[in-house]
């Protein structure tokens, strides 16, 4: 796989207010390989997505989109390159002053290259793909949590990106909602989109990804397939896959201890 068809992080360190979030973190998302980053809540999974998108800047190390290193670059210099990537934020991040239709067509309206009728056609096509075309004239405040996530997916699809990032896409959804989101992700993958998801939900992860990265205390402690993960002898991975009552003791998991760093 050439560097042009990947998004990568090399030896990235990132900290906030003296708290280390990532330390010498290496990661590569290759085109066509759907991945999931796993880890307990607060370990820094969303931070990885934001670093890959250039929304945050690492303290040290390199982040590259294709063959362009975006570390230290002004946003205007990689804005075009970043348009190959879309993200579905955890809460949807729909623009609440716009209707669902305007949200989905936002990038197309901004580009100003297509006629309004054509944009409306694309918007309806994407909304029907995710099954919420009836909500086109509603505002985000009028939608349920599941519908918001589906509209967010439609918005991500509108500009036909190569990569789609999902930030905890199934958190807070009922089992039917989880099933719908997983099905949507599988359909996207079948259409050739590369997905990168961060989650702590194993069911969703194993249903939608081929490779898994496990993050623990600012470091990647595992990277491999589902089978390799299930067979892993790494204590943190085993504990994450099959938590015991000991896992609840203060200090065992990074979130619960006083030395939390992820």
């Amino acid at each position: 796989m050439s560097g042009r068809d990947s998004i990568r992080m090399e030896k990235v360190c990132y900290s906030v207010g003296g708290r280390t979030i990532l330390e010498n973190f290496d990661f590569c998302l290759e085109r066509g390989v759907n991945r999931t980053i796993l880890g307990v809540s607060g370990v820094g999974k969303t931070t990885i997505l934001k670093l890959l998108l250039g929304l945050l800047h690492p303290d040290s190390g390199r982040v590259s989109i294709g063959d362009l290193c975006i570390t230290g670059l002004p946003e205007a210099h990689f804005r075009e390159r970043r348009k190959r990537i879309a993200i579905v934020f955890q809460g949807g991040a729909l623009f609440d002053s716009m209707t669902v239709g305007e949200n989905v067509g936002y990038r197309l309206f901004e580009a100003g290259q297509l006629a309004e009728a054509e944009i409306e056609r694309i918007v309806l096509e994407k909304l029907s793909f995710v099954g919420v075309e009836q909500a086109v004239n509603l505002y985000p405040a009028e939608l349920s949590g599941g519908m918001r996530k589906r509209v967010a997916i439609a918005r991500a699809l509108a500009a036909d990106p190569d990569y789609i990032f999902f930030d905890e896409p199934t958190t807070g959804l009922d089992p039917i909602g989880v099933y719908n989101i997983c099905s949507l992700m599988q359909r996207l993958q079948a259409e050739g989109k590369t997905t990168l998801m961060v989650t702590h939900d194993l069911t969703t992860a194993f249903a939608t990804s081929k490779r898994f990265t496990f993050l623990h205390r600012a470091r990647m402690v595992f990277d491999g397939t589902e089978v390799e993960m299930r067979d892993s002898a790494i204590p943190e991975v085993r504990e994450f896959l099959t938590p015991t009552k000991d896992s609840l003791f203060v200090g065992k998991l990074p979130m619960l201890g006083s030395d939390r760093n992820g």
Partner: protein
Amino acid sequence: MNIAVIDRIMLRFFAGLQDFFSLAARTFVRIFRRPYYYREFAVQFDKLGFSSLFICMLTGLFTGMVMALQALIQLKPFAATSYVGGMVAVTMIKELGPVLASLMVAGRVGSAITAELGTMVVTEQVDAMRVEGTDIVQRLVAPRVKAMLLALPLLTVVADAISLLGGYIMSAGYGINPTMYVKGIPQFMVFQDLIEGVVKPTFFGLLIAVTGCYVGLNTRGGAEGVGNSAKQAVVLSSVLILMSDFFLTKIFVTFRG
């Protein structure tokens, strides 16, 4: 307090100052650059400007009335009540009109800008816009600054006019006729005073909008963070208005010679 703490505070202060001026400079450049976001500008002009009209009129009316009342009390022993129109005009147009209208707008609009942008930040809408390829300064900051640059001088002119009317209402009670009231105005004012009365609110409008946007876009945390930012924006822009009013006045006095 040891030296390291002072060092950290100073570093944070100057970094913040640098970011503030950087945002102001980037906004200035983008005001003249396409796309202009006319619709957003119109929405903001209505939200920030037109909706503040009533509160500015009230401020102007009662300030004009109280100014005239105080002036009449002072002038009456000298039989100089005919100068009341000029005194109200010079005080309101040069100083109180711009400052009071700006403070009212800072309280009402500065906090609204900050709360709106702050909420967009904490709900990741700003990040979503950036990923969609939008220049945040061009899309969110420039239209608000343009709206304020146009709205605040207009609001100040309205507040000034209403204050003169308020002043006359009070003066009428002391037997001053409209001609006498109006004739007193040019005796106290020159054309440069009118310029001063428009330049000041334009500058204050810039301060309010840039401060509101800067604090809003740097909001951290959830609902509490948004509340803190709104409070911070109002305090900061009010202090900046009062401080810059002194320096602007000094500059105008210097140019007058």
